[in-house]
């Protein structure tokens, strides 16, 4: 670890080394005790029996339950992101409009949907679709899940867009005005394309939030057959609750870690692409100020600007900054 953490303690002398060894042993003992308790409890209940885990190394469980569930999860997440992006762009630009009658409604819509739990939005959407007979009984759950996710994430992405546009240097706007572009023109032709690349990592990490939130679709009255819903059918067939939930949680974690990796990659790609490695526009464009926006639109202190947070921590914390946005 670099940065603040090594500043926190000296290189250990004999006494500190002894203390660290004692702490290591104590902590390892506690971990081992917990692990032993878990293993003993599990094996007493025969949850570790090979018969309960074996289904997951056969093809059947994957092709019948897990992969169809995962496909539904990814489908709902992908659709939600694709629809939420333009919705977010419109709302975000709406908040930047010069006209009060566009700015205020956009602000109210954004703040409203950010304050409401996604689960409520999904339950409500499902009920409305049933009442108004929208869609068929088959695709209504998907519609409800996507509607809930689009409303919430559209509002979140609106803030990301707004922060992205605001993070661009003023010179961009001034140059556009100088060559005679109107506001609508320089917004769509100059600012938005640049903001999009700045926001790319934030958008990819918003996808992590969306993937996690699709799991709400199997709850209450929504009845969307996504990955978590397949747990019920698997445990009903094999009676292997512990194994099933472990495997399903691991699948979600794997998908999210891949997305986080991609977010980090896109950020690094942007940094090198914008910065050209020689400073230049770096300060304004590449230090993704957009990610420093929190849920309430108050900027978090940008780590890279601080004396304590040198470059080695930057990657880790820039990821953290936007993961923090939406626990």
């Amino acid at each position, binding site marked *: 670890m670099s940065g603040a953490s090594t500043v926190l303690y000296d290189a250990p002398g004999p006494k500190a080394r002894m203390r660290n060894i004692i702490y290591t042993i104590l902590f390892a003992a506690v971990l081992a005790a917990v692990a032993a308790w878990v293993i003993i409890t599990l094996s007493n209940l025969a949850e570790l029996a090979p018969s309960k885990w074996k289904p997951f190394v056969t093809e059947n469980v994957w092709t019948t339950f897990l992969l169809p569930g995962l496909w539904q999860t990814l489908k709902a997440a992908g659709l939600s992101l694709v629809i939420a992006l333009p919705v977010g762009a419109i709302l975000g630009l709406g908040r930047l409009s010069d006209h009060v009658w566009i700015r205020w409604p956009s602000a109210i819509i954004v703040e409203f949907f950010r304050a409401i739990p996604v689960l409520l939005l999904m339950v*409500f959407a499902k009920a409305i679709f049933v009442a108004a007979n929208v869609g068929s009984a088959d695709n209504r759950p998907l519609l409800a899940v996507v509607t809930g996710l689009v409303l919430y994430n559209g509002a979140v992405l609106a803030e990301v867009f707004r922060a992205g546009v605001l993070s661009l240097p003023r010179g961009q706007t001034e140059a556009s005005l100088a060559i005679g572009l109107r506001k609508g023109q320089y917004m769509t032709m100059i600012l938005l394309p640049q903001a999009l690349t700045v926001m790319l990592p934030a958008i990819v990490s918003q996808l992590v939030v969306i993937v996690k939130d699709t799991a709400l679709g199997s709850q*209450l009255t929504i009845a969307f057959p996504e990955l978590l819903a397949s747990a019920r059918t698997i445990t009903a067939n094999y009676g292997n609750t512990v194994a099933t939930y472990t495997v399903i949680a691991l699948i979600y974690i794997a998908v999210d870690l891949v997305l986080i990796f991609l977010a980090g990659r896109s950020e690094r790609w942007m940094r090198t692409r914008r910065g050209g490695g020689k400073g230049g526009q770096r300060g304004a464009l590449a230090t993704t100020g957009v990610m420093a926006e929190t849920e309430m639109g108050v900027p978090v202190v940008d780590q890279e600007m601080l004396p304590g947070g040198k470059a080695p921590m930057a990657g880790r914390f820039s990821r953290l900054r936007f993961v923090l946005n939406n626990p």
Partner: protein
Amino acid sequence: MNFDFLSDPQYDILGAFLVTIELTILAAIGSLIWGTILAGMRVSPVPIMRWFGTVYVNVFRNAPLTVLIVATSVVLSDTLGLRLAARGSSTFIADNSFRLAVLGFIVYTSTFVCEAIRSGINTVPPGQAEAARAIGLTFSQNLRLIVLPQALRSVIVPLASVLIALTKNTTVAASIGVAEAALLMSTMVENESNALVSVFVVFAFGFILLTLPVGLLLGALAKKLAVRR
């Protein structure tokens, strides 16, 4: 719009929101404590603690909250027999699922608290920690007396967003039958099909009422407590 259901005695809307508030407060206290401990582990000089903190945060932050909450009920309680309430008590099921939900929220939310505090530690100028070391403070004294008090003040706003997210996340407890706002709304939406929109408006308003003051209040507090440098 039809708001007749507000006077219907079978729907205890205030009671449901009270459960939401209870869940939020208990989970918030728990995750603040556990999250701070985790942050301490992640910056500690003991490698095994750092390792544990990293693995814990990466596992539980990336698992969907819904999976964790459902698992506390189906795996921990039903399968492994963990009981968080007295078996014979008349409110056993309600108490048990309420406490399991709080446990699930703490496990999940503490990872975000940990990361917020860790980023706060990074905002403390290195000179502070260096001066603390120079006067002979050990790592835990340094963290406890010098770094954390400054770090915590700089992360009030991020922690406020975590708290707001937690308030909204408590609705997930409905999936294991905790009688909070989302569960009540779900039943009301089934029964009051002629007043769908007004039911939603009431619950949406309830959540706005819960989250809006938290943001404003903690934002003001953050400004007041900010470390002037």
